[in-house]
């Protein structure tokens, strides 16, 4: 039998959901294309990037990968050059943001097709740093 949920909104974004006589509090917020919910210490995210791809994603198409900056950051080290073979997990670029170094790693094996950043450069979210073939 499908469980029946009775839902009461107790304030904007806050819901009491009754299931088997027991109440749970669930918090919901966010725009339709990126909805967030919280229950019992856990965060759930739905429709993330339905309208636009979120930052920091690896864009894959026809066997190639492009690695993008996940957030505004400074490029502190470029470790590869075009033509270099790389293996999944290899660090290609080191960024620095929020006082921490962030390694950008290859998501799979391949060859560096192009490098689109320079050491010392400030890069914006989603700007492509390295393309792999």
């Amino acid at each position: 039998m499908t469980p029946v949920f009775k839902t009461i909104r107790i304030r904007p974004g806050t819901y009491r959901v009754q299931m088997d006589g027991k109440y749970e509090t669930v918090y919901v917020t966010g725009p339709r294309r990126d909805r967030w919910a919280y229950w019992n210490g856990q965060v759930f995210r739905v429709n993330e990037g339905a309208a636009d791809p979120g930052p920091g994603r690896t864009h894959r198409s026809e066997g190639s990968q492009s690695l993008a900056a996940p957030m505004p950051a400074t490029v502190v080290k470029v470790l590869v050059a075009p033509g270099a073979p790389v293996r999944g997990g290899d660090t290609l670029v080191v960024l620095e943001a929020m006082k921490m170094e962030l390694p950008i790693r290859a998501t799979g094996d391949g060859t560096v097709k192009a490098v689109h950043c320079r050491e010392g450069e400030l890069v914006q979210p989603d700007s492509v740093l390295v393309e792999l073939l």
Partner: protein
Amino acid sequence: MIKRLLIANRGEIALRVIGACRELGIESIAICSEPDRNARHALAADRAVAVGPAAPSESYLNAETILNVVRSSGADAVHPGYGFLSENADFAARCEQAGVVFVGPPASVIRQMGSKIQARHLMQAAGVPVVPGETPTGQSDDGVATALKRVGFPALVKAAAGGGGKGMRRVLSADDAAEAIRAARREALASFGDGTLYVERLLERPRHIEVQVFGDALGSIVHLFERDCSVQRRHQKVIEESPAPSIGPRLRDRLLSTAVRAANAAAYRNAGTVEFLVEQGAGSTDDGPFFFLEMNTRLQVEHPVTEQVTGRDLVLAQLLVASGQSLPWLQDQILARGHAIEARVYAEDPANDFLPQVGRVLLYREPTMPGVRIDSGIAEGDDVSVHYDPLLAKVIATAETRELALARIAAALRSYPILGIRTNVAFLLRVIESDSFRAGNVDTSFLDTQGAWLAQDETADIPGHVRAALRAHEDASGSPAVPDPWARSGSWRP
């Protein structure tokens, strides 16, 4: 007594100091960067002065501008908080020269303890054990690599001017040395403007136990017991507690008395912390060797756990002692009761290599329950920016026993919704509820070795009742004619 205090910081620690000012009748002056004009700390102070753009180097780290604000506002004291200018000896010295009280130790002490090399020498002379290591006289990459070979592997290469894990790298073998030295040097230069490195032996599975100390201008020095901060990720503390679990009374006494000896050797004044690495004794919890790691010449992020178990207000004492008064307590008046634990809530994505997160806090509700203290610096609608530390809040739970304190902090984290930006709340819960942590003897390698499975993303399956709430929310905000309540920051009613 201090009359008007400028707080050279932001976020939760600025709010903590502003609260203490209110209790003591001290006028508080906040500084803020341009985007922080409506931040909680800027709104909470009696006055707030914008000191520059978002970048810390142009605002919270800009000593010149901050000193100008001190002068123009007529402040007679500066509280640096932690981070930013708190361990900048030059800034403390310039305050002293301007006749303004720097709430912290004298500039000379900050300078001495800020240099890992000088601090080691001082501690060795005072009979405080230090980790085997050396500062290469040849500071070239090759010179540092040679020193690493002398110390032996595994080893650490660290920034001499460092702290908080920045400019520090593990070196497991000679093959890793070159890259580690370059990375440490880069971070050291970027974070501290000083690329001097030193090397030391990496202890096997040590625990990080530190002792809160406090000194006054009359030369009295007391300790306020220890904190265990072994749960660290890349040398950033994540969970801290007091007392340290599973250590025997002999080891505790040795740690406390050694910390007081170290603080005396440094002629320490105001609040400080002596950090030790404690090697796990073979079976015994009472006679393991321990080594001086460093001394933090400021209030620590994790000071609340000490306040909770001792019932002593460290910020209040900082302001009294900085005003020239004697310590408000004698050593034998300071007792520890029960157990306190703190978890640091960071804007980061544990499932994605703990990448710091930026974005807007869309929904934010702090838990209120007995025995739970939240020290936070954010509010619903705030933007978490790339410019500042990703620490959002500290959750501190206090109870009669460790077991009860763990249950209490877990309950608090289970009722602490922060949405719109990813945080480590679910990760903190998994750590606190893990068997290893509950057993109470994790070492500093715990998160490095077990962090991966603790960081797994478990949110793939959305439970039915959460889906029901999502559907209800869709109905409540779905019609295009109705404004999205998300855009209306909470005041909207159906």
